[in-house]
């Protein structure tokens, strides 16, 4: 590895696009064509290394890889590419990644055209001061219309698309052109090798063997193995054990200079010492001013996470700390629930984010968790003039002291083919939306709605996907708070309130929500030996009620000698299965019910 890399031989860029437009597949081709990974080790979406990513076929974490490209000008360039996620819930990963690089490849699926996330990404890239190279992907598809999409990019985004690179990431067509465009059309990084060290802490994660691994982008100065460095925000000081670049596995390197991206390990014990966005400098002769840092992510959906087995609380705490290290957009604080015991109130950027974090905690840390109803953050204006932030419906103060309640509203941008426009408008209308704008780009409509976030966090994506057969795309920003007639709805199972299922709803929607909820619970709670009333209530007034009838048949018809052993083992298995249940009075509710009950389709 060369000891020192000239700045003009470096290109740092992120690959951004709407979900599924082919970012990770393009990264595959770039990795492959430059021989970064041996042919026999190649696999599709190689950078999507987490189990959940592979199962769902989407990128969740931004991933960095360093490749070397011998360009047509006869010189070999170091390219640091960051493959980013496309889903709106992981937009924070994208914005964070963009701070570490100078340019973006904007991938657009030539058969789909510009989508909501395409727009959002362009704005972010421009905000980060990036040069942008538009890349039209999937031109192998019969439905691809590169010319039409070029026009669309120019009309909708206002970006010159005449030089867009036409590729098929799947077949490899056009990939050499992408590499040349990176070198010729994206700027090299700037930086001063002789200045005091100034490096940006871009990402960090916990590795079972290596401990905490920190990814950095060097802005100025040089960092070497053995150096003692300081995290400027937290003040923590560490000696660097190991310095490496990602190809995509770690390859050791002696030093990293300006413009370079790499990782370090430093026997970091305190997971809290590494904050993304922090600036790393040398302990002695450090730089004066830190980098501006990242805007902290604003969690918009909150829910409680509780261990199924109360003894796992400490393991959950440890797991959450480690995971938060790898996901700066996720927040947590301790919570206690009458029904569920000790746990954490966690904040997420959206429902998929919530699901992914829960999944990762369960798999990577071998925990069984119960998730409570997701909630947004309400502002409770008290009669005494104070304002409380409500993250958890359980904490709703007594109404006699409440003056009014405000809820967060969003500006949602939805792009959808003409044919489905009617259904989308109806959906937004049903969710208390106010139409702000409606325009056309070819046969696609772009609608902008002002919506209460509360109506979106439950199942809006799912509904949108199903009414548009997957053809709509969606993006949103929080715009502010507004007063509305909101109430707390409680759920009672066998006359016992289940605090984990209580939620804030609009009064006009409460009856419908309540009815849907008790009907759903009736299906999700297994029959017991007795009948179980399931009710939704506002205060003491019941607004919906169902009765789960008693189980009538559950007996082994034939039980002879040998069955004694079999039945005994079966009972032991059942006992293990019961750990996935929660006891509410005499009723056992499977944890899956908590998750499913909230995914309502009306």
């Amino acid at each position, binding site marked *: 590895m060369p000891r020192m890399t000239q700045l003009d031989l470096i290109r740092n860029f992120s690959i951004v696009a709407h979900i599924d437009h082919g970012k990770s597949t393009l990264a595959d081709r770039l990795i492959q064509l430059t021989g970064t990974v041996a042919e026999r080790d190649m696999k599709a979406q190689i950078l999507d290394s987490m189990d959940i990513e592979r199962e769902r076929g989407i990128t969740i974490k931004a991933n960095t890889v360093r490749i070397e490209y011998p360009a047509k000008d006869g010189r070999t360039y170091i390219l640091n590419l960051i493959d980013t996620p496309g889903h709106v819930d992981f937009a924070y990963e994208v914005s964070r990644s963009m701070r570490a690089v100078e340019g973006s490849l904007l991938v657009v699926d030539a058969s789909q055209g510009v989508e909501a996330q395409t727009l959002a990404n362009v704005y972010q890239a421009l905000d980060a001061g990036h040069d942008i190279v538009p890349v039209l992907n999937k031109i192998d598809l019969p439905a691809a219309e590169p010319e039409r999409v070029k026009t669309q990019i120019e009309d909708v985004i206002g970006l010159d698309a005449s030089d867009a690179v036409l590729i098929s990431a799947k077949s490899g067509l056009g990939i050499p052109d992408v590499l040349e465009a990176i070198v010729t059309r994206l700027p090299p990084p700037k930086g001063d090798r002789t200045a005091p060290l100034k490096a940006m802490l871009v990402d960090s994660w916990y590795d079972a063997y290596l401990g905490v691994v920190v990814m950095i982008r060097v802005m100025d100065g040089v960092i070497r193995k053995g150096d003692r460095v300081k995290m400027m925000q937290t003040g923590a000081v560490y000696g660097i054990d190991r310095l490496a670049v990602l190809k995509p596995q770690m390859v050791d390197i002696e030093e990293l200079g300006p413009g370079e991206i790499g990782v370090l390990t430093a026997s970091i014990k305190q997971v809290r010492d590494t904050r993304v966005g922090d600036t790393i400098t040398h302990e002695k002769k450090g730089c004066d001013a830190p980098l501006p840092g990242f805007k902290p992510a604003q969690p918009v959906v909150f829910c409680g996470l509780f261990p199924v087995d109360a003894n796992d609380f400490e393991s959950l705490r440890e797991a959450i700390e480690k995971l938060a290290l790898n996901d700066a957009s996720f927040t947590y604080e301790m919570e206690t629930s009458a029904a569920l015991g000790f746990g954490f109130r966690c904040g997420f950027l959206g429902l998929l984010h919530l699901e992914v974090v829960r999944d990762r905690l369960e798999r990577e840390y071998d925990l069984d968790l119960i998730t409570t109803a997701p909630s947004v953050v309400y502002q409770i204006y008290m009669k005494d003039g104070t304002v409380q932030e409500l993250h958890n419906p359980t904490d709703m103060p007594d109404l006699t002291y409440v003056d009014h309640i405000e809820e967060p509203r969003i500006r949602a941008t939805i792009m959808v083919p003409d044919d489905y426009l009617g259904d989308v408008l109806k959906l937004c209308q049903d969710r208390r939306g106010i139409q702000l704008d409606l325009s056309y780009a070819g046969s696609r409509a772009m609608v902008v709605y002002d919506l209460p976030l509360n109506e979106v966090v439950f199942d809006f994506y799912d509904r949108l996907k199903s009414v548009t057969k997957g053809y709509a795309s969606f993006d949103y920003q929080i715009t502010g708070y507004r007063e509305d007639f909101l109430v707390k709805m409680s759920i009672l199972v066998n006359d016992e309130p289940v605090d984990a299922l209580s939620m804030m709803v609009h009064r006009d929607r409460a009856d419908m929500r309540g009815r849907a909820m008790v009907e759903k619970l009736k299906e999700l709670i297994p029959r*017991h030996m007795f009948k179980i009333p399931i009710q939704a209530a506002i205060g003491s007034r019941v607004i919906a009620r169902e009765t789960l009838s008693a*189980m*009538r048949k*559950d*007996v*082994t018809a034939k*039980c002879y000698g*040998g069955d*004694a052993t079999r039945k*005994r083992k079966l009972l032991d298995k059942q006992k293990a299965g019961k750990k996935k249940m929660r006891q509410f009075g005499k009723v056992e509710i499977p944890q899956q019910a908590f998750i499913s009950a909230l995914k309502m389709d009306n």
Partner: protein
Amino acid sequence: MDDWRNGGFGLYLHWPFCQSKCPYCDFNSHVAATIDQHRWGRAYLSEIHRIGAETPGRVLNSVFFGGGTPSLMQPDLVAAILETVRATWPLANDLEVTLEANPGSVEAGRFRGFREAGVNRVSMGIQALNDADLKKLGRLHSVAEARAAFDVARTTFDRVSFDLIYARQDQSLADWRQELTEALTMAADHLSMYQLTIEDGTAFGDRFKRGKLRGLPPDDLSADMYVLTQDICAAAGLPAYEVSNHAQPGSESRHNLIYWRAGDYAGIGPGAHGRLTLNGDRWATEAPRSPGEWLAQVERDGNGEVPRARLDRQEQGLEYLMMALRLSEGLDLPRYRAISGADPDERKLRDLVEIGMIERAGNRLRATTDGRMVLNSVIADLAGD
């Protein structure tokens, strides 16, 4: 430490072969082209000697030839086995010797042979009293053949019983009422009626998983069928003495009562299970399921078991609870305490009594009819922590 005496001592012999495999059946039964019955005979005798040496002097209450289809055994083989049994253990005066028979695999001559060998009770797998359903169940016999075989059995043996499977595909409550009424006109003093269970790993199980097994009764209908069966049989003088077994009082299957009363039993043959109390420890015995493997192991090692498992008091208590609550006589609380060292959870008992699943009478704990229909849940509740 000799608690098993409360249940008695029996011998179970497993004959693992059938003429064909029924699609619902998950018993250890196999179809084999040729069977060397002499060789099998030697293996059974060797196993009887082995277990006999561990249980000298015990009074034997019952022998049960189960399967598979034991009526495919040569009467000579049955005779040789029973001769060895008689030479091995002292016999109870009222020793019960049962053989499971398939209606298709018997003729009168063979029945006489079994009787002469010492069999005094036959349990016949009739399963259904209409030909269409027999066919759906994959049975080889017709209703007429079953009736004829049963008539022969009745005239040959002191005690006869037959099995029916109900809650079948597309069976209505009225269908079952009629079939059951007919069955009661045939029945002697004992009748077993099992609701069709879809077992994993059977042809029905596979079809069910693929959604291809239609028309099975929903839980509510099968519960109604169960209640109907209880009522009609009781009125006909054959009340249920166990979840699926009915008899005139005094005519219960003594062998099965040993299981349900948590007695001791030796299990011999492929896949057979046993429970033996030896020097104060209670052991669960088990044999390899594969017929070929079992036979080879007995011939090679002189022992047809996989390593035994010792049951601790809690496991013994659980087994007693699981088995005894199947019986209408229920469970004896002092005995349960003696076995397990603890009483059932009082709060749970009270809850179960309150919702009508369990009743307590003196020292006995019984499942009600409602409770027996959901016995798995009742037991899981009582056994849970």
